[in-house]
């Protein structure tokens, strides 16, 4: 693997990481609101720029990372992520602290990822789902939302509402979702209630 062929990481690692983190932070603080990500990355396909920015901002050698089959099938993706973050890429979804999902429609069940424990609910996975567009059709309630808010993204698993309901029912255990694409990121923490809009 030649370094010359490697797609570039952040132009300004300190400030680009900070800005991307802030987008993720506000996204999880205000579920459903899309926060812009401007990182200017051109990662190898099928990894999208927004998801790549989140991984580069949040992952390092301390965070086992899992890739869905679509991403794992493209070795350049793992090389890119490993080179820029040092994160160990794991084959077992349950071992991952971050999971990167390029094809949400076919994704594993939420329960296949670490849920945390009653004593340490923070020891749970954060799932980064690549989306093409932010749309509508859902209504969100919960911490971070002033009343209720409309939300939507595509593509998502067909049983998304049921999955999110089960995830909410397990609170304080559960996974947290970052939906990345279309120039931004939206957050769906485990505390959110998702309903049909």
């Amino acid at each position, binding site marked *: 693997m030649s370094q010359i062929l490697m797609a570039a990481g952040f132009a300004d690692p300190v400030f680009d990481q900070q800005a991307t983190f802030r987008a993720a*932070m506000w996204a999880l603080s205000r579920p459903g609101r899309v926060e812009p990500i401007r990182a200017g990355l051109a990662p190898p396909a099928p990894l999208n720029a927004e998801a790549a920015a989140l991984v580069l901002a949040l992952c390092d050698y301390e965070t086992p990372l899992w890739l869905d089959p679509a991403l794992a099938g493209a070795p350049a993706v793992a090389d890119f992520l490993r080179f820029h973050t040092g994160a160990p890429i794991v084959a077992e979804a349950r071992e991952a602290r971050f999971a990167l999902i390029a094809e949400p429609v076919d994704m594993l069940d939420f329960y296949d990822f670490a849920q945390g424990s009653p004593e340490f*609910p923070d020891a*749970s996975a954060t799932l980064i789902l690549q989306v093409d567009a932010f749309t509508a059709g859902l209504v969100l309630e919960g911490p971070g939302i002033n009343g209720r808010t409309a939300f939507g993204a595509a593509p998502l698993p067909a049983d998304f509402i049921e999955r999110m309901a089960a995830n909410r029912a397990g609170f304080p255990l559960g996974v947290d979702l970052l939906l990345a694409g279309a120039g931004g990121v939206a957050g769906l923490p485990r505390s959110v209630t998702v309903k049909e809009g």
Partner: protein
Amino acid sequence: MNAHATGAMPEITYNFAYLDEQTKRMIRRAILKAIAVPGYQVPFAAREMPMPYGWGTGGVQVTAAVLGPDDVLKVIDQGADDTTNAVAIRGFFEKTARVATTTSAREATVIQTRHRIPETPLTENQILVYQVPIPEPLRFLEPRETETRQLHALAEYGLMHVKLYEDIARHGHIATTYAYPVEVAGRYVMDPSPIPKFDNPKLDDCPALQLFGAGREKRIYAIPPFTRVRSLDFEDHPFRVQRFAQPCALCAATGVYLDEVILDDKGGRMFVCSDTDYCNERQEAGHRGEMAGEAGRASPSPQPSPLRGEGADGALNLSPTGKGRPEGPGEGTWGVPTTPSSAGDPGSARAAPSGMTK
């Protein structure tokens, strides 16, 4: 580093906002989990900071992890921007992050605080970072982390209610006046840091993001914006906050938290806004309290003169800028609820203030 005791030592340089990037990522990941599980204390590997544990290292680490070049930072301690520790922490970030600072709660994007929530209502896009000494609300009931962790896991908070109820039985009041426990989003009982319980209602449904950092105890927790935060209470003893009997002596504000300033050794005292920014803003808008100068005159500092480093006279000056006190509007109302020792105490007959315009 080798020993080169005779030569100059090499300059030491630090990263933006002091922390290295790996440490920031670790803290940032903890912040994200804290937001996802409101009120739950996320363990994090707090670093040693160049200020002592207990002096805001948790808040400083959280601030350092969120801060970016476009932020405008405000730091308060006891509500005031010019308290020594607030000055020291603000100076730290000016030096290590070259970030813009302000004393205005409206202009700030990040506010680091110790013991107060600003009086000026916070808005969306603002981040309030609390310095936390003891993050565990159950600590004084059960000192063991191994036990309290279980109690949180089981949402077993009966112990806390028993403690509060014992207060009522014994004193007729809940005797907790600060660091008053709250329930966040219907699940976790949380210590809001040692803010007076006067500030507790501001925690609820707050548009800003509230982050809590405890460095020595290595915990981070959060309240997302617009989150239900309920102060624990009982049906027959609802949660109530302290009321002050009089307005701020400088800006005449009511319904705000006041500092009591001792004016002399004869029981003289005045009450002024704890939030200096809020007080100054009101004074600039023309509001005048009992002890304020005439409009147009420089108003006296609402705070006691800060500590001076041992200097010309080597003394610590703790007296307020305006010495003496005004004719009181009536005995027993200087913020002191009528008590046997203040109301009608002949010893507290007061002279007109010297050096103050009434």
